[in-house]
C-alpha cells in the first residue's frame, strides 16, 4: 500500500534531518582532524546565506536545471518514502543527477565541464550497483514496492550481504566522499576549482545543497530497507554506515576516475552479481 502521508513527511522533514546529518558530519570530520569544527547548525547558516546572495548566472537555463535537480530529487525521495516502486524511484533519482550535469554543461566553463564529465562517470559507476540492490530485494521479498519490502519480516541483509557491501561502496560515491569525490569537492581547488557546481552561485547553489540533504535522507533510507525487519538494528546500521563513510572520507586520498569506475564495477560484479546468482540457485529460481 502506498501512503502519500509518509511522502509528505519526507518533503517537510528531510531537509531538517539532512542538514543535521551534514552538520554532524562536519563536526566529526573536524574532530578527526584535531579541530574544533563549525557549529552543528552550520549547513543551515550556509544555505541561509546562499539565499541572501546575488544570483549570478552564465545563462538563465542554469536556474531551471538547478530547480529540476531539486524537484526530481524530491520526487524520487517522496516516492521512496511513500512506498512506491523502487525502479521508478531509481529512475527519478538518476534523472535528477542528469539535470545537475546539464546545468554544469550549460555554463560552458572548463571547470564545470570537467565536473560534469566526472559526474557522468560517477553515475555510470554507481548505477549498476543500485539497480542490483533493487533486483536483490525483489528476489528476496518478491516485490519492487518499498511498502512491501519494509513490512517484510525477512532479514534482507542476511540474504544479500554482497549486495549490501556493494551498496556501501557506491554510497561513498553518492555522498561525494573521498576517495570518490571526483566531480565536486572542497579539497580539489587546484584541480577542478569546484567541479560541477563551479558556475552555480547564491540561490542556485543553495538549491543544490538542499537537494543534497534530500539525497542523504533518501540514501540512508535505502540502508534501512536492508534491515527493515528490526527498527533498532536498522537505525544502528544507518549510524554505523555513516560513521564508516566519514572515517573513509578522512583516511583516503582522491583517486582517478578510471579507478572509481573499475572498482565500482568490479565490486558490483563480484559481490552483487555472485550474491544474486547464489540466491537464485539456492531458492531454485524466482519465487514470484
Amino acid at each position, binding site marked *: 500500500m502506498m501512503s502519500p502521508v509518509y511522502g509528505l513527511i519526507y518533503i517537510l522533514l528531510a531537509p531538517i534531518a539532512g542538514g543535521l546529518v551534514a552538520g554532524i558530519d*562536519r563536526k566529526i570530520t*573536524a574532530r578527526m*582532524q*584535531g*579541530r*574544533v*569544527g*563549525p*557549529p552543528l547548525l*552550520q549547513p*543551515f*547558516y*550556509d*544555505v*541561509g*546565506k546562499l*539565499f*541572501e*546572495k*546575488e*544570483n*549570478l548566472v552564465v545563462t538563465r537555463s542554469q536556474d531551471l536545471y538547478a530547480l529540476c535537480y531539486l524537484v526530481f530529487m524530491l520526487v524520487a525521495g517522496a516516492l521512496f518514502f511513500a512506498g512506491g516502486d523502487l525502479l521508478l524511484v531509481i529512475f527519478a533519482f538518476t534523472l535528477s543527477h542528469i539535470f545537475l550535469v546539464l546545468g554544469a554543461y550549460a555554463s560552458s566553463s572548463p571547470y564545470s565541464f570537467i565536473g560534469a564529465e566526472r559526474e557522468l562517470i560517477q553515475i555510470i559507476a554507481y548505477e549498476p550497483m543500485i539497480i542490483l540492490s533493487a533486483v536483490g530485494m525483489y528476489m528476496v521479498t518478491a516485490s519492487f514496492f518499498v511498502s512491501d519490502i519494509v513490512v517484510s519480516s525477512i532479514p534482507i541483509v542476511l540474504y544479500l550481504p554482497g549486495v549490501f557491501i556493494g551498496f556501501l561502496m557506491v554510497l561513498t560515491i553518492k555522498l561525494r566522499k573521498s576517495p570518490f569525490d571526483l566531480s565536486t569537492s*572542497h579539497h580539489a*581547488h*587546484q584541480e577542478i*576549482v*569546484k567541479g560541477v*557546481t*563551479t*558556475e*552555480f*552561485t*547564491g540561490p542556485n*547553489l543553495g538549491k543544490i545543497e538542499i537537494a543534497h540533504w534530500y539525497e542523504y535522507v533518501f540514501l540512508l533510507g535505502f540502508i534501512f530497507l536492508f534491515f527493515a525487519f528490526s527498527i533498532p538494528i536498522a537505525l544502528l546500521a544507518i549510524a554505523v554506515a555513516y560513521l564508516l563513510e566519514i572515517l573513509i572520507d578522512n583516511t583516503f586520498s582522491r583517486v582517478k576516475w578510471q579507478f572509481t569506475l573499475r572498482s565500482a564495477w568490479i565490486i558490483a560484479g563480484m559481490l552483487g552479481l555472485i550474491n544474486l546468482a547464489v540466491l537464485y540457485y539456492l531458492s531454485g529460481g524466482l519465487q514470484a
Partner: protein
Amino acid sequence: MTYLKRSPWIIHYDASSCNGCDIEVLACLTPMYDVERFGIVNTGNPKHADIFVVTGSINEQNREVVKNIYEQMPDPKVVVAVGICAASGGVFRECYNVTGGIDKIIPVDVYVPGCAARPESIIDGIVKSLSILEEKRTKMNTPAAKKDALGGGIQ
C-alpha cells in the same frame, strides 16, 4: 538575524606576495586557529566567495586577474587586503613594475597590517569585514539599489 555573518566563504589570491602572508593565511585553516569555527571556508572559487582576501601588491601581471576575480564574485562582497604590500605596496612600492596597493584597482574594505600579517590579525580583519558585509547587504536590499542593479544588468 542574518546568515551572512555566520557563513563567510573566502577566496584567497596571491598577488605577487612573497608567500609570507600566504603561509599565515593558510595557518588560519590549521587545527591551531581553525577558522571553520566561525563557518569560514576557503572556497577557491570566486563565484562562491563572499570575502576576497588578497596578499601582495598590484603589478602589471596581476592587475587584470585581481579585477577579474573581483568582478566574478556575486554581491554582497568585501575585500580584505592582507599585509603591508597589499595595503600600499610595502617595500616594493618604488619598483618599476609595481602599481601599489590593491586599492589602486578595486575598492578595499579592510586593511590588515603586518609583514607578515599574523594569523590573529588576519582573523581579526576578516571578522571586522563581516559587519561591512552586512552593511552592504542591507544597502543592496533598498529599493534604490535594486533599481540600480537592474539598470546595471541591462548595460
